[in-house]
């Protein structure tokens, strides 16, 4: 059928082109609607913005965390360096000489560095600071310009060079430190390091980094001598070999130097090229970034869900307008184009709002990310998230594409339905065909089960990508969506026939028996959001249960002795352990040393403990019980106990052998047992302390546990007073600290859980409002049949609660499956950890009840809101 032209169009002397005609129509319909209903329009834009912004904020935060981590290394070392580190201890003057002699006359500068932790004192105490000691004179021979060490004042300014070199308090602070602490050059500033307060003189604020390298916000630079004195270092911590980047063969020279230095240092030195440093950084954050990726993708789904609901609501609200346009002769195609234009305009506005929301949100999320990264790995500069062109493109794709996609199905229905039917405000014929295919959903669920057998994909940096886990997760998400959407009608049919139910409830279920595509969409979205939120809860609960159990086993001693993270000694002196052993209250002191070492191109934590004593004093969570020492092969230098992560990452378990490169030469360790240890995700290789000390020059212990005599008072204050730079913690204190740290690592997961629940509630409310508004005619019919408002409210409350219940039940199943997937597949493949599977049943039940109750409440509120609108005197006003 050919459409008749609109009256105003026929009056035009020169018929406008299709585009102009569409534009004129859009102004007369959509813009007028927007003016008449500004709050509705704003709400739609806000929904779109929320969907776009949620996804963007996590993406941007993710990127900020990673670049911040990489930026730290760059800012300190420049980008043209070979880094030489020691597995344990500091570089002595003799070793520095060996490095210099190895470099020889080649065009490279040897730069020793001291690094340490400190904290602010004074009015805002406890903020962590990173101290960097660099030779202010020697660094000026450096052939590269991107080291941020040109700190000397202009000639003629006081104090002169000699004064600065001789004043061990001279410090240069990062701009962020200066701003936060209100510092300016010349001022005295007190920090806390090694358990004592130190007054520094601020000589200047560090210049912004060059070449895009940012100065870490908590950086404080001291002269090498000052840093060594303040941190009580016997040598230097790290040596950078700076190669002039402008040399034509700079890269080759770096490789040659790295090889030679590794040879000279034996196993005692770890030599890293720039790429390897970045790889090390990438390795450290890989697992964490994987978690963020999955969260981003789930956020994307949630965003699409919100957009779909919003668009659906918009279409429903203007169905009368669509019917009128159809009556006036517009074809279904013209209406679709008109609405595409309308939706594009809304989506653009929503995308813009999403970009703003995303940027704001990322600033909040990035703090959680930074805290998580800090807790897991190290200090980062993840302090800001920058909007990039890619973000805008992604926002447009999500907002515009998602908006059009989400609106397409309801619009198709509205545009193709005959005008009389549309104007009658009757129900749409079901348009979301996909949601009516539970069989396909079942296939996807089975597919998810099948791919679980796939192994993880190894990544270049040494991590593994749990492809099976993610594939199964998405198969289950989509499949579950189809299944849940498909069972609304059968469930409602079964319940509606139950005579034992009150009439209002039966009536509600009868409405669901004829559930529309919109009902299915609402259930599907709620199902995804509920499943995501609840699975996060299970994940966090399981992790916490595991950690608590592990901490209970791990921390069995009465007192724990360690060097504090900031402002203390670098380790526990041997003499301290000997002194403690001589105390009458002490039954046993078990020191341990641990430090990272390279192994098969990756880094593991090598530890030494007094093993015979340790096994006597403490219990372990064994994954594989220790073999008897008599089984140790003759060619093994010692035994090792590894953690589960090590076994998983290196594929070596009980009875296998590992060969380490040590300063004393290669040493073979026989793996005697595998234990559960959630202390690190790089792999732990623990051996006998005496053997370790005979291979490595260990200057101090990392920590020690103290078992006291039963019933004996613990003179903790006396010990603390004697060892001011060390940290003594009772069992309870340490467990609380450990739990706090582990809690912080899941800050972001909890944030996502809250977001998911929020979306679930909002989505449910929006969907019900849309459905009930669409179905106003049937409500009027009910009223005409004599149902009072209370019964109508009960009917709608039943409809809402029924929808929510189906979604929540499905979401519960999904959450159980997703949580199992996270715990048994994704986490194990990413971290190598086996976690306990713990259901926070009460919490989950409360959340489920809350969602169902929300459904009922929304239905009830909708009934009330439509009562006034649907009075016979003012029908459909």
């Amino acid at each position, binding site marked *: 059928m050919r459409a008749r032209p609109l009256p105003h169009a026929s009056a035009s002397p020169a018929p406008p082109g299709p585009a102009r005609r569409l534009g004129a129509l859009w102004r007369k319909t959509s813009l007028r609607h927007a003016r008449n209903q500004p709050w509705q329009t704003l709400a739609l834009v806000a929904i779109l913005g929320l969907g776009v912004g949620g996804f963007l904020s996590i993406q941007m935060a993710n990127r900020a965390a990673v670049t911040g981590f990489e930026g730290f290394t760059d800012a300190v070392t420049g980008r043209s360096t070979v880094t030489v580190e020691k597995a344990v201890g500091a570089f002595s*003057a003799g070793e*520095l*000489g060996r490095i*210099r002699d190895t*470099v*020889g*006359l*080649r*065009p490279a500068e*040897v730069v*020793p560095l001291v690094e340490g932790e400190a904290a602010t004192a004074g009015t805002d105490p406890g903020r962590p600071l990173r101290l960097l000691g660099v*030779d202010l*004179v*020697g660094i*000026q*021979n*450096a*052939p*590269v*310009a991107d080291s941020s060490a*040109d700190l*000397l*004042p*202009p*000639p*003629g300014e006081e104090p*002169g*060079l*000699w004064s*600065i*070199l*001789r004043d*061990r308090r001279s410090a240069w602070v990062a701009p962020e430190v200066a701003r936060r602490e209100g510092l300016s050059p010349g001022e005295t500033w007190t920090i806390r390091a090694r358990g004592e307060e130190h007054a520094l003189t601020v000589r200047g604020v560090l210049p912004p980094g060059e070449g895009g390298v940012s100065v870490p916000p908590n950086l404080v630079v001291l*002269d*090498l*001598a000052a840093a*060594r*004195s303040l941190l009580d270092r016997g*040598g*230097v911590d790290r040596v950078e070999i700076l190669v*002039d980047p*402008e*040399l034509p063969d700079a890269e080759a020279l770096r490789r040659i130097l790295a090889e030679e230095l590794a040879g000279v240092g034996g196993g005692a030195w770890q030599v890293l090229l720039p790429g390897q440093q970045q790889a090390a950084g990438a390795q450290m954050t890989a697992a964490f970034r994987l978690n963020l990726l999955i969260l981003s993708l789930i956020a994307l789904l949630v965003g699409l869900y919100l957009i779909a609901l919003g668009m659906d609501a918009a279409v429903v609200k203007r169905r009368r307008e669509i019917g009128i346009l159809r009556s006036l002769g517009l074809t279904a195609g013209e209406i679709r184009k008109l609405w595409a234009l309308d939706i594009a305009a809304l989506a653009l506005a929503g995308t813009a709002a999403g970009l703003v929301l995303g940027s704001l949100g990322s600033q909040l999320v990035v703090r959680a990310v930074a805290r998580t990264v800090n807790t897991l790995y190290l200090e980062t500069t993840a302090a800001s998230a920058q909007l990039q062109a890619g973000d805008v493109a992604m926002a447009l794709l999500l907002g515009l594409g998602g908006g059009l996609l989400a609106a397409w199905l309801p619009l198709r229905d509205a545009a193709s339905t005959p005008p009389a039917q549309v104007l009658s405000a009757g129900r749409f014929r079901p348009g979301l065909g996909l949601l009516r295919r539970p069989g396909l959903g079942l296939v996807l669920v089975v597919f998810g089960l099948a791919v679980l057998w796939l192994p993880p994909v190894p990544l270049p940096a040494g991590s593994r990508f749990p492809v099976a886990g993610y594939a199964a997760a998405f198969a289950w998400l989509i499949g579950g969506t189809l299944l849940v959407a498909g069972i609304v009608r059968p469930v409602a049919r079964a319940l509606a026939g139950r005579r034992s139910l009150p009439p209002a409830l039966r009536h509600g279920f009868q409405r669901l028996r004829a559930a529309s595509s919109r009902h299915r969409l609402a259930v599907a979205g709620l199902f995804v959001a509920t499943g995501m939120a609840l699975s996060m809860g299970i994940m966090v609960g399981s992790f916490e249960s595991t950690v608590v159990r592990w901490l209970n086993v791990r921390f069995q001693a009465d007192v724990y002795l360690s060097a504090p993270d900031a402002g203390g000694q670098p380790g526990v002196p041997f003499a301290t352990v000997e002194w403690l052993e001589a105390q009458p209250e002490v039954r046993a002191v078990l020191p341990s040393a641990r430090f990272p070492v390279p192994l098969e191109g990756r880094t593991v934590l090598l530890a030494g403990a007094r093993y015979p004593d340790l096994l006597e004093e403490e219990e372990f969570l064994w994954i594989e019980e220790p073999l008897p020492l008599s089984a140790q092969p003759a060619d093994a230098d010692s035994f090792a106990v590894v953690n589960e992560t090590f076994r998983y990452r290196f594929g070596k378990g009980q009875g296998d052998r590992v060969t380490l490169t040590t300063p004393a030469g290669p040493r073979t360790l026989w793996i005697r047992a595998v234990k559960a240890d959630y202390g690190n995700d790089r792999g732990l290789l623990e051996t006998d302390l005496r053997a370790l000390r005979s291979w490595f020059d260990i200057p101090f212990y990392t920590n020690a546990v103290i078992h006291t005599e039963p019933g004996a008072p613990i003179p903790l204050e006396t010990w603390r007073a004697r060892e001011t730079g060390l940290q003594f913690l009772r069992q309870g204190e340490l467990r609380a600290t450990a739990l706090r740290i582990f809690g912080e690592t899941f800050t972001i997961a909890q944030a996502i859980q809250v977001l998911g629940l929020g979306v679930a509630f909002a989505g449910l409310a929006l969907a019900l409002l849309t459905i009930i508004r669409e179905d106003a005619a049937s409500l009027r019919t009910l009223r005409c049949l004599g149902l009072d408002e209370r019964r109508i409210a009960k009917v709608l409350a039943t409809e809402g609660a029924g929808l929510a219940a189906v979604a929540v039940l499905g979401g519960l199943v999904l959450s159980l499956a997703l949580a199992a997937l996270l715990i048994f597949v994704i986490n194990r493949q990413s971290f190598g950890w086996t976690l306990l599977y713990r259901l926070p049943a009460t919490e989950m039940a409360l959340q489920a009840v809350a969602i169902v109750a929300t459904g009922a409440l929304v239905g009830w509120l909708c009934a009330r809101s439509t009562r006034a609108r649907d009075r016979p005197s003012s029908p459909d006003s």
Partner: protein
Amino acid sequence: MMTSPVSPHQPSRLRRTLRHLGTGALALGTMAMGTFAATASPGASGEPPAVPARTDDGFPVPQPGTAFSFPRDHGSHPDYRIEWWYLTGHLESVGGTTGTPESARNSPDGGGRSYGFQVTFFRYAGPLPEEEDSLPAADPLAGDRQIFSTHVALADIDGGQFLQAHRMDREGWNAAAATDTLAVRHGPWSLALADPETERMELVFSTGPDSHARLTLTPQQPLVVFGEDGTSRKGSDPAARSYYLTFPRLEVAGTLTVHGKERIVSGSAWMDHEVSSQQLGDDLAGWDWTAIQLEDGRSLKAYILRREDGTPSPFSRLVWIGPDGSQTAFRPGPDFQWTGIDSWTSPHTGTSYPSTVRIDTRDPATGQPVSLRLHPRLDDQEVRDPLADNAYYEGACSVSSPSGLRGLAYLELVGYGPHGLPGGLR
């Protein structure tokens, strides 16, 4: 064309650092010329004034009559404010790494190529504290009492290139000088006494990414101690004096790599070791200095201290050094005249240097007048010192005379152009 290995990033930073030294760390190369010795001739002002034990700022003053002890006095004297070990030399390649001088002279890989080099290790002491023990103990890795600064230059005569490098470090793991023997090390560069019996030394230095030298230097003539009673006067101030020790003739052998091409080299070098706590007087505008090695085995050291009014200071000297170490010195006058006869203008700094020189003197062997003509073997031998924003001329020269005397020299010209005389030396 001259190439410089100095990074374009370095100058401002290094200059800033050196200015902070504040003790006259400028024009480093020039300090090596400073044999302000009265030597065999009487002092400029008649009766010598009493020598103070310390300078105004508390450093010890070199004392007349000091007995030297070797190899200890080849080593460092950290109590004194300034000290340097200065070496210049003339090298010739003998071809490849295995050739002999005869076979190599015409070999295609560069046998017979001529080079000049200058290496100067400087040590500066920081100001003394008003009260002893008021300073914290020095950090053995990064000290705060001494700073080392080193200039290295290599003239590739046949290649027409002048390569130079500089570095500065505080005393510590990367810069040190032994006090009991000659063992100076600064970064990858070093000068050390390898054999106390023969006083053979080993010198290692580099002037760029792929240019470096490993040389052995063996004295061929006795060590010369300049100055009255073992101290060399530098001006009318009685504290302005130094211990000044010179090896006027060292045989050099070793390898030299220029732009990645290694050659065996041999030749002759000159070495000064000077220790002082106070240098020049206030009225000086600059100086012209040379160390000449004649083919007949004799050597000359000559310098003119230029005063602000253009007249030579009475502490200017010319000293003939016999193969046996004997000295004959002349003051400015009929037996010592220095005339610049041609100049070269630096394309880098615009400074004009009187780099072709005629020195008129009297040959103590014959008693006859002799006119020595110094001609640069390479025009561009300007040392542009990034440490001190200073430039000076330190160049290899050939020496000839109408009377048939021939030889090689190093010529140092300081205080020309906008840079002037480094005030810190006063």
